[in-house]
C-alpha cells in the first residue's frame, strides 16, 4: 500500500524539476513493445536514483556518477525490466520496450488512477487547481487569482486582500484548509483577507457545495483546500526566485523558495516580500451619497500595504511512513481608504497625499503564525493520517481616535485587537476491506481561544471547542459507477466572555434619577451545539461523459458575535445585537455535475439547489439605539439555486478557447426580509478566454498570448443596506513565455499582464469598497519574472 502511495505521490510530482549538481544525466524513453506508444508514469529506479517517465514516455535521471548502473523499469500493467547502463560522457539515450502483462489487472485498476480519474469518481463537485494555473493567473491575492474558476468569487478589500465566496456565500461559510488543518483567522470580519502566502502553493482543491462531512462546521458552502505540495524526488534540489512589479499600485514583490531532498529527509523554505502603494482607480472623485472625495492623481489614498511571509517545512519519508512539519508566518500591514472607513466619513489632519507609499491611519496589522504536522502511516490495508496544528492569529486595527456617542476621545489609536489561538487535531484511517470499498473513518477536534482588546468592540472574547467524528465509504458498484455515502456527528461548546464598555453611559433609573454605568456589551454564556451531517452521492462515467449527483446536509455553528454581541459599530453606523437563541445553521443541498470531455472539446454544467432551514443573517431593523440603526442577528429560511456552465475547445492546433458562466439565485423565504436575496450576492457573470500558443517568437520558448474578457450583468437583487450595481465588461491581456537563459532545461519564465486594458470604471458588487461607491482598480501592467535555480 505504501508503495502505491509513494508511487502515486511521485507520479504526480512530475512538474518539479531537478537540477544537476555534478556528474551526468541519463536520458531515455519507455515505449510499449506492442503498440510502440510511449508509456507515461513508468518508475525507473536505480540505487539512490529515481525517475518517472513523462507523457511522451521520456525520462531524465540527473546526478548520476560515472560508471555502470542498473535500473529497474516497472509499470503496473507491464512486465518489469532491468537494464544496465554505462554512464559516462557522450552516452546515448536509453530506449526501453515494456511488454504488457495480463496479470495483476486489478492492481492496475487501483494503481493507475490519475487525479482526474479520481475526481471523476468522486460524487462531489470539485475543482482541482494546479501550480500552472496559479502561476499563469497570479493576481495580488490568492482569492483574486482563483476568481477565474466559475462559481468562485471574492470579497476584495483594496488591492492586496481578498476572501473567498463560493456560489454567493462567504465569510464563515467557506472553510479554508491548508495542509489538512483548517485555517483559523478572523473570517467573520469584512475588512481583511486570507492570511496565506499564495506563493509556494502547488495544489488546491475547491469544493463547491456543502462539505461538512469531511471538514466540519463552516464548510457549509464550500472549501478551499490547499493541499501539501508533492514530495520532492530523492537527491534533488530545486529553487526559484520570482520578481514582480506592478504599475497600478507600484507594487514590488519578491518570492524565493527552495525544495530539497536527500534520501529520506526533505525540506522546503520560502520567503515572500511585497510592498505596494495606494492603488489607482479610473476616476478622480468619489461620490458617496452627498459626499464628494477628490482623489489625488486617482490614488485611493492610504490603501498602501506591505507583506512579509516566511515558511519552512521539514519532512521524512520512508517505508510505511511520511511526515512533514510546516512552520509559517504571514505578516501584513494594510491601510484603509482614509476618507471613509466603512460608511463613516472622516476628516483628518494627516497629509495622506504627501506619499502614495506610506501607511497612515486607519490601518491594520495582521500576523498569522502556524505550525502543523501531517503524518501518514501505512499498515497493511490501512493508511492512518494525523494532522496536528497550532495557529495564532493576531490582528490590530488602528484608527484616529474620535469620540462617539457617550464614548470620550480614546487615548490611543488601537481600536480593536484580536488574538486567537487555535489547536487542532485530525485523525483518519483510510482502508480498503476489499477492492470495492474505500472506507474512511476519522475525527477532528479543535480548541479556539479568542481574546480581544482596544477601545472598540465588535466580537466578544470566547473559547470554543468542537469535536466531530465521521465515516464514509466510497463503493465501486462497477468500474464506472461509484457510490459515496457518509455520516458525521459534531459537538461544539462555545463559552463567550462578558465585555463591558470602558466608559460610562447615563442610564435612566425607574425612580427618575440617572446613573452613569459601564454598559455590558457581551454576556458570559456557555452554549452547546450538536449536529448530524450526512452526504451521499453517485458518480457515473460513460465513455467521455461523467455524471455526478450528490445530496448533502451541512451545518455551521453560530459565531460568538452572532450569539453574544450587543455593541455599536460606528464604522457602519449601526448597533449590532446578537441572539443567544440562535441554532446551528443547517443546509441541504443537491448538486449535479455533468461533464463531457473529448480531445477536441469539453463541456460541463453544474447546477445546484440549496435550502437553509435557519440561515443566520444580520437583519437591519427599522429601530434605533442611541441614534444608530439596530441590526439584529436573526434566522430565516433560504432557498438558493444556480450553477456554472463551462465549455472549452481547441479550435485549431494553437488556439484554445474557454468560456464559462456562473449564476446564483437566493431568496429568503421567511423572516423579516422574506422575498429578499442574501447580502453579497454575486451577479450573473460570463468569462471568455482565448489562448494562442505560438510555436516560437523571438527568443521565447512556448510563448502564449491570453485574452480574458469578463461580462458581468447588473446586480439588481439587493437587500438593505446594499446598493444596486451596474453590469460591466472588462478585459485582461497577458503574455507568457520562457527564455532558455542559463540552462536549456530550466528556462526563465516571463509574464507580462495588463489588467483592465481599457481602464474601465466599474463596480464589483462584492467588493468591500463598493458600499462607498469606490470603483475597481484601473489599468494595471504587471511584469513577473521567475528564475529557477
Amino acid at each position, binding site marked *: 500500500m505504501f508503495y502505491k502511495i509513494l508511487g502515486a505521490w511521485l507520479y504526480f510530482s512530475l512538474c518539479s524539476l531537478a537540477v544537476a549538481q555534478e556528474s551526468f544525466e541519463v536520458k531515455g524513453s519507455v515505449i510499449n513493445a506492442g503498440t510502440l506508444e510511449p508509456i507515461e508514469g513508468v518508475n525507473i529506479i536505480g540505487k539512490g536514483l529515481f525517475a518517472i517517465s513523462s507523457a511522451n514516455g521520456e525520462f531524465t535521471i540527473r546526478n548520476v556518477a560515472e560508471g555502470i548502473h542498473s535500473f529497474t523499469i516497472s509499470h503496473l500493467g507491464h512486465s518489469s525490466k532491468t537494464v544496465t547502463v554505462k554512464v559516462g560522457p557522450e552516452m546515448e539515450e536509453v530506449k526501453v520496450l515494456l511488454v504488457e502483462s495480463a496479470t495483476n489487472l486489478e492492481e492496475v485498476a487501483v494503481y493507475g488512477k490519475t487525479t482526474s480519474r479520481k475526481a471523476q469518481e468522486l460524487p462531489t463537485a470539485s475543482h482541482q487547481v494546479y501550480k500552472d494555473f496559479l502561476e499563469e493567473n497570479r493576481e495580488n491575492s490568492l482569492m483574486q487569482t482563483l476568481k477565474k474558476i466559475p462559481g468562485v468569487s471574492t470579497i476584495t478589500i483594496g488591492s492586496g486582500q481578498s476572501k473567498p465566496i463560493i456560489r454567493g456565500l462567504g465569510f464563515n461559510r467557506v472553510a479554508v484548509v491548508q495542509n489538512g488543518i483548517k485555517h483559523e483567522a478572523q473570517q467573520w470580519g469584512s475588512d481583511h483577507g486570507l492570511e496565506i502566502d499564495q506563493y509556494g502553493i502547488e495544489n488546491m482543491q475547491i469544493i463547491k457545495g456543502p462539505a461538512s462531512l469531511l471538514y466540519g462546521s463552516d464548510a457549509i458552502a464550500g472549501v478551499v483546500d490547499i493541499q501539501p505540495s508533492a514530495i520532492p524526488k530523492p537527491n534533488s534540489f530545486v529553487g526559484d526566485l520570482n520578481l514582480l512589479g506592478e504599475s497600478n499600485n507600484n507594487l514590488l514583490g519578491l518570492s524565493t523558495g527552495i525544495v530539497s531532498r536527500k534520501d529520506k529527509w526533505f525540506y522546503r523554505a520560502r520567503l515572500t516580500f511585497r510592498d505596494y502603494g495606494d492603488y489607482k482607480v479610473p476616476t478622480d472623485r468619489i461620490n458617496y*451619497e*452627498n*459626499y*464628494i472625495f477628490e482623489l489625488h492623481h486617482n490614488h485611493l489614498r492610504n490603501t498602501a500595504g506591505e507583506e512579509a511571509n516566511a515558511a519552512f517545512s521539514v519532512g521524512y519519508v520512508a517505508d510505511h511512513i511520511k511526515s512533514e512539519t510546516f512552520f509559517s508566518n504571514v505578516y501584513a500591514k494594510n491601510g484603509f481608504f482614509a476618507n471613509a472607513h466603512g460608511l*463613516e*466619513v*472622516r*476628516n*483628518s*489632519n494627516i497629509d495622506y497625499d504627501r506619499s502614495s507609499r506610506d501607511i497612515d491611519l486607519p490601518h491594520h496589522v495582521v500576523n498569522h503564525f502556524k505550525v502543523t504536522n501531517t503524518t501518514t502511516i501505512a499498515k497493511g490495508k490501512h493508511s492512518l493520517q494525523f494532522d496536528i496544528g497550532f495557529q495564532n492569529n493576531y490582528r490590530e486595527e488602528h484608527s*484616529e481616535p*474620535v*469620540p*462617539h*456617542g*457617550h464614548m*470620550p*476621545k480614546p487615548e490611543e489609536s488601537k481600536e480593536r485587537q484580536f488574538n486567537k489561538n487555535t489547536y487542532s487535531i485530525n485523525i483518519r484511517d483510510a482502508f480498503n476491506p476489499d477492492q470495492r470499498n474505500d472506507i474512511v473513518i476519522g475525527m477532528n477536534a479543535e480548541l479556539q481561544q479568542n481574546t480581544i482588546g482596544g477601545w472598540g468592540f465588535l466580537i466578544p472574547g470566547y473559547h470554543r471547542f468542537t469535536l466531530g467524528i465521521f465515516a464514509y465509504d466510497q463503493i465501486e458498484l462497477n468500474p464506472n459507477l461509484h457510490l459515496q455515502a457518509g455520516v458525521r456527528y459534531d459537538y461544539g461548546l462555545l463559552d463567550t466572555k462578558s465585555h463591558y464598555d470602558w466608559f460610562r453611559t447615563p442610564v435612566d433609573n425607574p425612580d427618575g434619577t440617572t446613573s452613569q454605568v459601564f454598559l455590558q456589551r457581551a454576556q458570559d454564556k456557555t452554549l452547546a451545539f450538536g449536529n448530524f451531517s450526512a452526504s451521499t452521492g453517485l458518480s457515473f462515467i460513460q465513455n467521455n*461523459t461523467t455524471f455526478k449527483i450528490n445530496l448533502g446536509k451541512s451545518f455551521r455553528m453560530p459565531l460568538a458575535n452572532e450569539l453574544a454581541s450587543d455593541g455599536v459599530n460606528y464604522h457602519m*453606523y449601526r448597533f449590532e445585537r446578537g441572539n443567544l437563541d440562535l441554532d446551528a445553521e443547517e443546509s441541504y443541498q443537491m448538486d*449535479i455535475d*455533468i461533464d*463531457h470531455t473529448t480531445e477536441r472539446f469539453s*463541456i460541463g*454544467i453544474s*447546477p445546484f*439547489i440549496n435550502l437553509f432551514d435557519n440561515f443566520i443573517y444580520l*437583519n*437591519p*431593523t*427599522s*429601530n*434605533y*439605539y*442611541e*441614534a*444608530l*440603526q439596530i441590526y439584529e442577528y436573526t434566522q430565516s429560511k433560504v*432557498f438558493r*439555486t*444556480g*450553477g456554472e456552465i463551462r465549455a472549452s475547445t481547441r479550435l485549431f492546433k494553437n488556439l484554445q478557447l474557454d468560456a464559462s458562466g456562473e449564476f446564483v*439565485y437566493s*431568496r429568503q*423565504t421567511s423572516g*423579516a*426580509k*422574506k*422575498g*429578499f*436575496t442574501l447580502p453579497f450576492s454575486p451577479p450573473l457573470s460570463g468569462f471568455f478566454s482565448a489562448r494562442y500558443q505560438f510555436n516560437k517568437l523571438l527568443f521565447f520558448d512556448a510563448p502564449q498570448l491570453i485574452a480574458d474578457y469578463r461580462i458581468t450583468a447588473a446586480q*439588481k437583487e*439587493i437587500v*438593505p*443596506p446594499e446598493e*444596486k450595481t451596474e453590469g460591466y465588461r472588462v478585459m485582461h491581456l497577458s503574455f507568457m513565455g520562457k527564455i532558455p537563459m542559463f540552462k536549456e532545461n530550466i528556462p526563465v519564465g516571463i509574464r507580462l499582464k495588463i489588467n483592465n486594458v481599457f481602464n474601465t470604471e466599474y463596480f464589483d458588487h462584492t467588493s468591500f469598497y463598493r458600499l462607498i461607491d469606490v470603483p475597481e482598480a484601473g489599468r494595471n501592467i504587471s511584469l513577473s519574472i521567475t528564475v529557477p535555480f
Partner: protein
Amino acid sequence: MKLISKYFYPLFLIVLITACSSDAGLDKDDEKPTIGINHNGGFPQACEILQKGETYTFKAQVTDNQALASYSLNIHHNFDHHTHDDQGAQCDLEAVKQAVNPMIFMENYDIANGGTTYEINIELTIPKDIDSGNYHCSYSVTDETGWQSRTSVDIKIVE
C-alpha cells in the same frame, strides 16, 4: 440529433428547475426613504449658529415609497474636525480644541402610523453648561423594510 439530446436534455432540465423557482419577491421594497433639510423650514441649515439656553425646533422632511418607521437625531461635537457634513457648504471652523463638557444628544423616535411623508419636529433647548464650538448634527430615518437614509449638517453653538 443524438448530440442534441445528449447535451440539451440536462440543460433543459436545469432551465426548468430554475424557472420553477418562482420569484417570491416581486413586490419587495427596494427603495430607501429620503431625508432633507432643504424644504421650507428645514432646521438647522449649514453653518447655522445656535445659542446656549435658546430653544429651537429641529425640522427635517422625510418621505418613503411605502411606510416610514423611525428617525433619530444625533448632535455631537466636532472640536477635532473629525467629520464634515454633506450639505456641500464649507463652514468656518474654530481651532481644534479638547472637549470638557460637550453636548451629547442622541434620541430615537417612532413615526406612529407609518405614512409616506412626515416632517420631523424636535423641540430642543441647548443646555447652558456645555462647551461652545463646532458641532455636527445628523438626522437619520428608516422605513419599515429597514432601509435607512441619513443627512448631516455642521453647526456652531455659541454663548
